[in-house]
């Protein structure tokens, strides 16, 4: 029953990735090799790895936008054979439709589902309130800031009542303050709405702030090297308090153990100054 309001609060969907292999037909190179993991309903999992380790490809495979060369993905037991509004991807860029107003962008999935206009506009109002952009419905999306556009993309993704939200580094193009606010909001909304989260990131503080577990990926070919639970109270982690720093350090250490190298490059670029010190200390 896609794009209709669920009767009661859902527990979120279970994701099972089993024996997934993927290679690019053109270059013949293996991108993913024997990837197996599960995500529990309403859990938030971060896929952490260096650029090019296949984490985005894995996210696309979970979403059904890409089909794996071998293996399968099941969401609540149902085999994923293609994209569906029940599992929605958010990309690094918001990819809003510039000829549509904010309202038309947010309500697009419901329009595709053939919902009545009154219901769509009611739902859009509700979601704009949720992402704190009340009163923006008539605005041209090109006039909004990067953070506002990403909030609209979030509202558009949530409008169709998804059970799974797949985030492909959706905040990496934003400034630090905006990024943190969105990380916090997405996590809060996912908990409130019963949505399972999978977050692709190369930013360890982001993984710590949003996820319950981190799956560390190595490259050539991409595989899951380690699964690390993220300790500490989540509210504290969101605020980046003392526990958060300990969790960051633990994840950082696990990351380096799994990948056999320090987290330089993209990790240090996007992480906080604090992490740079940690990373430098390990070099």
């Amino acid at each position, binding site marked *: 029953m896609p794009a209709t309001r669920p009767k009661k609060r859902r527990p979120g969907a279970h994701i099972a990735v089993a024996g997934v292999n993927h290679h690019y037909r053109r270059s013949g190179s293996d991108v993913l090799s024997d990837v197996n993991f599960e995500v529990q309903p309403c859990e938030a999992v971060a896929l952490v790895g260096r650029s090019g380790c296949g984490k985005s490809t894995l996210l696309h495979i979970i979403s059904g*936008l890409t089909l794996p060369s071998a293996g399968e993905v099941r969401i609540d037991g149902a085999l994923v054979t293609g994209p569906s*509004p029940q599992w929605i991807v958010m990309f690094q860029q918001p*990819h809003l439709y510039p000829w549509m107003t904010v309202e038309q962008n947010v309500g*697009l999935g419901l329009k*595709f589902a053939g919902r009545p206009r009154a219901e769509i506009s009611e739902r859009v109002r509700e979601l704009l309130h949720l992402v704190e952009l009340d009163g923006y419905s008539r605005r041209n999306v090109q006039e909004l800031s990067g953070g506002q556009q990403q909030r609209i993309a979030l509202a558009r993704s949530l409008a169709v009542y998804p059970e799974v939200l797949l985030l492909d580094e959706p905040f990496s193009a934003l400034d630090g303050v905006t990024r943190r606010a969105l990380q916090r909001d997405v996590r809060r909304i996912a908990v409130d709405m019963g949505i399972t989260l999978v977050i692709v990131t190369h930013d360890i503080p982001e993984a710590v702030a949003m996820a319950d577990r981190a799956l560390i990926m190595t490259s050539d070919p991409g595989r899951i090297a380690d699964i690390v639970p993220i300790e500490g109270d989540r509210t504290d982690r969101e605020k980046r308090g003392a526990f958060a720093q300990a969790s960051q350090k633990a994840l950082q250490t696990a990351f380096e153990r799994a990948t056999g190298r320090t987290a330089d490059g993209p990790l240090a670029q996007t992480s906080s100054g604090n992490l740079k010190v940690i990373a430098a200390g390990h070099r």
Partner: protein
Amino acid sequence: MSLGLAIDDAPAVTPVEGAAAGRPAATGRSWFRSTGYVLLGIGILLALWWVGGWVVASNPSTANFADFAPVPTFERLWRMAISGEAVRMALPSLGRIGGGLAWAIALGVPFGILVGRFKAVREASSVPFQFLRMISPLAWMPIAVMAFATWNAAIVFLIGVAAVWPVLFSTAHGYRRIDPAWFKVARNLGARPWHMLFTIVLPAIAQDSLAGIRLAVGVAWIVLVPAEFLGVTSGLGYAINDARDTLEYDRLAATVVVIGMIGFTLDFMCEWAVRRVSWAREE
């Protein structure tokens, strides 16, 4: 030879600058000044025409053509407007333009989408299309006369042949500018093929297709008059020929003015339509 060739001389697509933001209109003074320049331009054109008419009238060997001057022309134009003659001669021409453009759009937009969408189609069609495009539509005249049962159909064909290329090339160019992620997002939100066409593709290419249609209107209007020298006994081209044969030079000049005014109006309407559907902002 790029497919974008036809675009290079396309009228600049004026984006809706801040229309939604309610940017204040140009100030009174600058409006006054630009209107002044417009009137000055018209004034210079009329003055040159008047001087030309005076030279023709004052030379005994050309004095027979004195009715080309502005005063007799506008007197005749006024009588033609009041008697309905202007409308009577313009309507068949507008009908033929409409028919030719309808064919050009019906063929140019779908083929343009195919050319933009499929690399194979683009590569296979590039040489034939560029070759056909460079043939003057009037060169088809004898073939059109033989191929079609009525003169009218032959003229519509000639207009269509002239108008189809800008529509096709602009549409292909517009399609290639589509952000591939727009398709991914739409598929994810549950778009069916017809949603993809009507909600994503057509609005995305509308500004380019309409810019092509605007070029096509210009070409079609130019081809119309010589095409109407063919067997028909109605329309502006026929009126010009008829006025020449009956030595009514004021009627001839008045018809020329009518042709110019209608062409100007058509172009203005196209420009307005392009502005209406434009979503691209200047970087």
